[in-house]
């Protein structure tokens, strides 16, 4: 995957590394939050780079737009002064640094020495055209030639076919620009192909579970953070 964009990896990695370390080092919590922002943005960039547009966008929206703001709100709500800094001793710094370096070196050693056997990924041009009518192959992975986000969305909705057409799903026929020319987008009669549901509703159930979990968490957080009235004292 030596595409021109892959060169962008290095500046992004540098950004991530620098800002992450800076975040660890800095004493000002708000600055730390800023560095965290840069880190997260860089990670989002990495996601885009890896072709996971949806994940990247989600990263931006949820982390940068939501979580981080939440964190900063926390900072503001719990700040005693404009500039909070809780210093720790140099000794602890030393210990932490050594441990951290040791940890990273162990991980890096393991990564580099570990033999990663990856099946050579087919490029878009030479992508085999999987016939969506063949159940076996359909049950197998959808073609990478499709935009990953569509694959992802259809998977989340529990479809085997990346080209559902019914308004039932809300997903109308995918633009030809997103489908590799090899993939037939419609039946010979030109009519849209009916969608085929996976027997195992792919990731629909986890998706629902996560959403319910989110709701529960929000309620719990609201309950935890609510202002408690003292016991015995009736306001």
């Amino acid at each position: 995957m030596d595409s021109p964009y892959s060169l962008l990896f290095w500046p992004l990695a540098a950004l991530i590394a620098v800002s992450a370390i800076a975040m660890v080092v800095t004493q000002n919590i708000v600055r730390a939050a800023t560095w965290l922002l840069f880190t997260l943005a860089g990670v989002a960039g990495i996601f885009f780079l890896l072709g996971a547009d949806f994940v990247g966008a989600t990263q931006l929206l949820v982390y940068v737009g939501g979580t981080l703001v939440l964190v900063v709100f926390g900072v503001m709500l719990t700040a005693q002064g404009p500039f909070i800094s809780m210093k720790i001793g140099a000794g602890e710094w030393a210990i932490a640094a050594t441990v951290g370096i040791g940890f990273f070196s162990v991980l890096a050693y393991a990564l580099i020495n570990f033999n990663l056997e990856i099946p050579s990924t087919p490029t878009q041009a030479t992508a085999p055209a999987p016939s969506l009518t063949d159940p076996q192959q359909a049950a197998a992975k959808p073609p990478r030639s499709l935009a990953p986000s569509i694959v992802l969305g259809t998977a989340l909705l529990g479809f085997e076919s990346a080209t559902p057409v019914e308004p039932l799903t809300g997903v109308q026929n995918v633009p030809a620009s997103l489908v590799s020319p090899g993939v037939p987008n419609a039946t010979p009669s030109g009519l849209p192909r009916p969608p085929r549901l996976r027997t195992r509703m792919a990731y629909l159930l986890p998706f629902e579970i996560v959403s319910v979990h989110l709701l529960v968490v929000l309620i719990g957080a609201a309950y935890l953070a609510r202002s408690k009235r003292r016991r015995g004292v009736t306001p």
Partner: protein
Amino acid sequence: MVDFLQNNPGVLFVIATLLPLASFLLVLLGFGLWCVFRPYRETEYGAVLYHLFGGDTPGRTPAYFALGAIFLAFVCSAVGFGWYTVASYKHESDVQAKEAEIKTRTDEVRTAKGHQKKEEAEIAALAAEKELASLQDHWKDAWAYRWPWFKVNPSGMSDPARGTVIELGYRIDNLSALMFVMVTFIASLIHLFSMGYMADELAPTVEDHQVHTEDGHLHRRGRFGRFFLYLSLFCFSMLNLILTDNLFQIFISWELVGICSYLLIGFYYERQSASNAANKAFITNRIGDAGFIVGLIIIWTYVGSFNFEDIFRQIRWPAEVTQGEVQPAAKLVRARADGELNAAGKQSFIVDPNGDQVIQFPRVPPEEHSSPDVGSRIEVATSPKPTEHGSIPYWVLCVAGLGVFLGCVGKSAQFPLQVWLPDAMEGPTPVSALIHAATMVAAGVYLVARAFPLFTPEVLIVIAYVGGITLFVAATVAVVMTDIKKVLAYSTVSQLGYMMLALGVGGWTAGPFHLLTHAFFKALLFLGSGAVIYGCHHEQDMLKMGGLFRKMPITAITMLAGVLSIAGIPTFSGWYSKDAIVGAALEFAYAHREHTLLFVLPLVTAGITTFYMFRMWFLTFTGEPRDQHVYDHAREAPWTMTVPLMILAALSWFFVWGWDPSEATASWLEHELRRVEPAAVHVDFHAVHRAAKQFDGKFALSLHYVAGLAALGVVAIGLVFATLVYYYRALNAEETKEQFATLHRFLSHKWYFDELYSVMLVRPALVVANWCKAVDLLGIDSVLHSVAYSTRWLSWAEGKFDNGVIDGLVNLLARVTLRVGVAMRQLQTGYLRSYVLFLVLAVVAIVIALSYVVMTAAAGP
């Protein structure tokens, strides 16, 4: 319902039996509720319920219950008796007709010419036999019923029919029907009488003059209801005893009767004497019941059934095995075993009048004992178990009979065990009347009569002698008694002796006959004495009475009737029965000269009886009042007492008359009883009757008549003597007493029976008990105490060990743990950071270790 009753009218008697039980349960329930509500009598509703169930003053309701129940029972049994009599006569005629027909048919079969006719005759004979069988079956269904009560372990007997089931059942015949009528009738009269007699128990608090507490006399609640409660139970048990057809049920009722007598004799249990008397009665009966149980066990073991019919059928030779049911009858077939078991597992016996075994029927095939003549062989199927030979050792049978008879001795106060009955006078007088007349003592005689075929000749001789001794001893003691009730008590004992004697000498009808008649006049006498005592404010000593005729004429006259009856004055019921007894005794004595005593004793005693009965009557009702105070306060009894007296007087006079009354043997009651006389009687006393017949043939007048004349003469002597002494005062009683002081002391100490027993039995028992106590205290207790001390010492030492060593170890462990904890707590800085650091370090360590392991594994061979 009506059909049911018509098909088996025997149920009438069952109802009659169960009615007193029902009243008992009802009254008991009432008492229970009363006791339940008593604690709450202060509260509002509690008070209502409490007073609803009697409140503080005992009401008459229990008496009404009991009286109603027993009277209904009387009605039922009277109806049943009538029914039974009519039906039984009809049945007898039918059976005789059938048998005649069968006879003729069989003759035809024998005489018929030609094959055709012969066959027809045979068929007709068979049909007749079938009809006869069905007749017998129907009769049985009507008047008997057996219900398997509960099954017991077959105890591995090869014959599963034996000894597996204990039954309840009833079987009505003339004897039981008559007993029913008698018991229920007298019981209802006694109930009525008691309602008057026990009236002072109706008070909320009764003062008992005979019990002395630190503050004067005892004051207690009235026990009117309780008295009738006991009476009902008493009646139920007696009726059940009469009703049933098996020994086991009899035994149950036996014990029930015992406990009721205990409760009633000890009715005034605050009185020391009363409670002692109750205990004495109970314990004495226990001795008898021990024998009874022995008998039961033997019968159960060998016969495997308690049903009378089964027992008799097995030990007596069947009269006719060819038709219908096997009649329990005939003789005990004695035999001796001949050789070992043969191949077929059969034991062959040789019939021998002196053999040591008694053949059991019908376990022997019928065709094999058509004629048990001396010397003939009998093959009996056997099994290795000795108790399952088709035979019973003769001595075992004797023991069984003796055991059962011992039970009877205890119940009806015969010679060795007669001591309890006089003390039983401690109970209220109606109770004495009931015990003596109708229920308890009658039970023994009834059982002997009922189980008669069970007794071997030896046992019968024993019975006869026991009866003879009893009647003489009791009569002699009665002569010197001054307590009116004591006199009556001993007269009862002596009369029971008469009955036993009669049964023993083969006057089977005479015994129950005297039982019935005696029941009436003894009840009369007791109730009369009760009336006297009641009128004299519980004064029982005859020496303080006298001249009461003017105060209570009805009582006097009615009691006179009773006295005449028991003395055996002709045309009074006592005369008939006693005459029968004496006659039977004389026949027996004539047949066996060595047993002449068995005729002399009752003859003499008849005179003594007359003497002491008239003595009692004269002392009580004639002459000058010896105690002015008693005389002044004496008064006639209320109607509830006098009415029963008059009824009983009438009954004890002409109740048993047959035609003509002057004929001693013409009593209808005797006739009725004779109809149910067991065939065994005729077999066992065959010789006696034959001798009597020879005598009658030889002389103009029969043995029976001779005996009657002799008895009358003796009675006349006794009467004259009594009249001279106690009416005309021809010679002074006191002086006579002085002259025969030794004899008098001997008699008034009741032949020193109590003392004898206390020396022979009570003292040794006490001594043994003391020994046991000593052994217990010195031996066993010391061992126990030493064990206890050693245990204490051990536990003390163990405690030391525990505190010292074990706890020490535990504490050491705890201390070590504490030290380690104190050392380790330094790791718990409480800083989140350090925890995270430790986490990371752990991860690093694990990764390194794993990679090392992986590498070594990869590098390794």
